[in-house]
């Protein structure tokens, strides 16, 4: 069984999980009015949850320091050897430091604890914290590692806040998930760590998880909740519905997200299951959200309660969702954590206190993949000309950033070479690189640099998430199967992640790609089409 053996949450509400739980149970919120983020004046004030003072150790950024502090606190609860080569660090973040690769931060953090195993950065927008748990589950199920230290964090900045402002996604009041008065989300920051083990026993066991794409739009969620619906249905295969205490939803407080989740829950016939939304306490903590909300839910259920959904009063979604502004008694041993994000990605994990039947997957069952076609693109290939000559008739290509164009054209050529159209349900799109969305981040930054000519571009901001490339491919081919994006030090570190994707039995095809874009004239992509 894969168990949670230690955890920690550091947020503006407290430095430990216990302090955070207590604050939330007493109805506190970390959301305040801010006219600046960490000293940087904002063009428009926001409501958000920011640390009063960001810690910063010598030689480390605040992002790295927060990761280290949270991991150290979680490690102090257990006796695992973080230096062991059977221990892997899995970092969940959407932006990391912004101006350096999150792969470098991950390595610095792992090295701080004496760990030499190549860390994995999961960067799938707002679903990162749940996708990271699934990556950990797969790594531990494969038997390659005994322990996974899963830690999620994002530090708020003008960069992120201005982007959400350009999307008109922020509320200038406290967010109100699922409420009829909801106006948008609040930006938040936190760091949360969950240590998982397949050798030690803990109270909570991770049963597995699921990722699905909406195949609809890179920023707007599916109007029919295609991805979240599939995630919930997958979780119902793992969890006995009568033993399900609750669903911890994403509940950002935006019109579209909460409506989409209500549709997913209704279509999955889970209308009666209690639901809890925690953004009213923390805002949207991005890379930390999936872990923070999972950990708090576990501890609340340990106390026999379902946490109240702060800000909720009156149903504001088409379908009634069973949430409450009051604390409720919980019944059942299991829960589902659900998230969704830009790039059309949705993710869920299921946790239980009951015994879990061992999955004894032999590597032969999941990592036997045959390469059917391969494509390599380098800086000497003119991507736009390749598009015109070999693809064409997809005007959205011109709206994509360079990274997405690279992955998109690479995939089109790959499929053309193989002479196949990918299965809608049975395909996984797994991509990775080292420099995340660095090239586009610079382009976006240029739109907010000059305060006298300050026009943050939503079309550029959306591509500051590297996983958007996987969403573009999913939309093009209506792929509802898995989409994942990892930030790693080198191409060879990707293989283990491709292999374990096969643990999802429904996946028959993998479009795997190392897609690197440093600048307009420095890029490289290597893609493979893999079949079971």
């Amino acid at each position: 069984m894969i168990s949670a053996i230690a955890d920690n949450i550091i947020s503006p509400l407290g430095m430990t999980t216990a302090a955070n739980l207590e604050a939330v149970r007493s109805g506190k919120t970390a959301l305040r009015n801010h006219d600046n983020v960490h000293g940087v004046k904002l063009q428009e004030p926001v409501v958000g949850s920011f640390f009063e003072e960001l810690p910063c150790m010598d030689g480390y950024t605040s992002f790295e320091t927060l990761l280290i502090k949270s991991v150290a606190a979680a490690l102090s609860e257990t006796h695992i050897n973080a230096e062991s080569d059977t221990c892997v660090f899995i970092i969940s973040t959407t932006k990391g430091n912004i101006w350096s690769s999150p792969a470098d931060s991950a390595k610095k953090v792992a090295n701080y604890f004496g760990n030499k195993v190549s860390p994995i950065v999961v960067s799938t927008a707002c679903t990162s914290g749940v996708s990271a748990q699934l990556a950990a589950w797969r790594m531990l199920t494969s038997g390659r590692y005994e322990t996974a230290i899963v830690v999620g964090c994002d530090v708020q900045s003008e960069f992120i806040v201005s982007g959400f402002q350009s999307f008109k996604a922020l509320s200038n009041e406290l967010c109100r998930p699922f409420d009829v008065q909801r106006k948008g989300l609040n930006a938040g920051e936190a760091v949360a760590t969950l240590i998982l083990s397949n050798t030690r026993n803990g109270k909570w066991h991770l049963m597995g998880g699921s990722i699905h794409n909406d195949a609809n739009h890179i920023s707007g969620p599916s109007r029919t909740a295609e991805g979240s619906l599939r995630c919930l249905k997958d979780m119902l295969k793992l969890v006995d519905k009568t033993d399900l205490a609750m669903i911890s939803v994403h509940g950002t407080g935006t019109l579209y997200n909460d409506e989409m989740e209500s549709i997913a829950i209704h279509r999955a016939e889970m209308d009666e299951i209690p639901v809890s939304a925690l953004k009213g306490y923390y805002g949207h903590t991005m890379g930390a959200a999936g872990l923070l909300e999972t950990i708090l839910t576990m501890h609340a259920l340990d106390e026999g309660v379902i946490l109240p959904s702060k800000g909720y009063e009156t149903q504001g979604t088409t379908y009634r969702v069973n949430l409450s502004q009051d604390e409720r008694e919980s019944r059942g041993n299991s829960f589902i954590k659900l998230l969704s994000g830009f790039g059309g990605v949705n993710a869920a994990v299921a946790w239980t206190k009951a015994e879990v039947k061992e999955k004894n997957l032999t590597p032969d069952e999941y990592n036997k993949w045959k390469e059917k076609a391969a494509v390599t693109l380098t800086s000497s290939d003119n991507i736009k000309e390749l598009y015109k000559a070999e693809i064409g008739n997809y005007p959205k290509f011109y709206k994509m950033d360079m990274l997405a164009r690279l992955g998109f054209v690479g995939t089109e050529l790959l499929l053309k070479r193989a002479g196949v159209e990918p299965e809608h349900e049975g395909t996984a799109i797994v991509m990775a690189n080292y420099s995340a969305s660095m090239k586009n981040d610079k382009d976006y930054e240029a739109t907010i640099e000059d305060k006298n000519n300050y026009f943050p571009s939503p079309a550029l901001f959306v591509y500051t998430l590297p996983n958007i490339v996987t969403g573009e491919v999913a939309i093009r081919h209506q792929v509802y199967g898995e989409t994942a994006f990892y930030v790693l030090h080198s191409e060879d570190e990707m293989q283990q992640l491709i292999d374990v994707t096969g643990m999802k039995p429904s996946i028959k095809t993998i479009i795997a790609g190392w897609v690197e874009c440093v600048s307009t004239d420095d890029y490289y992509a290597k893609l493979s089409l893999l079949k079971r």
Partner: protein
Amino acid sequence: MDNKELKEQLKQQVIEVLNLEDITPADIDDAAPLFGEGLGLDSIDALELLMLLDKNYGIKFSDRNQSKAVFASIDAMAAYIIANRKK
């Protein structure tokens, strides 16, 4: 600048800001709906158009619903700009 010139300029700006590379100003009918089938624009394009109006004409919308009518067509956009431009 007369209405015709403004509409020409607006089409150029729309094409540029929305990266409509395969489209020329002549392809855009003044009266045709910008959203829906025509140019294949989406919600991010709508946000970029809001920014275009702010950046080039000093027009800000406090209510996004109000902008929907303005983006009905190039004709509607031009009329709104003439009546409300601050630069």
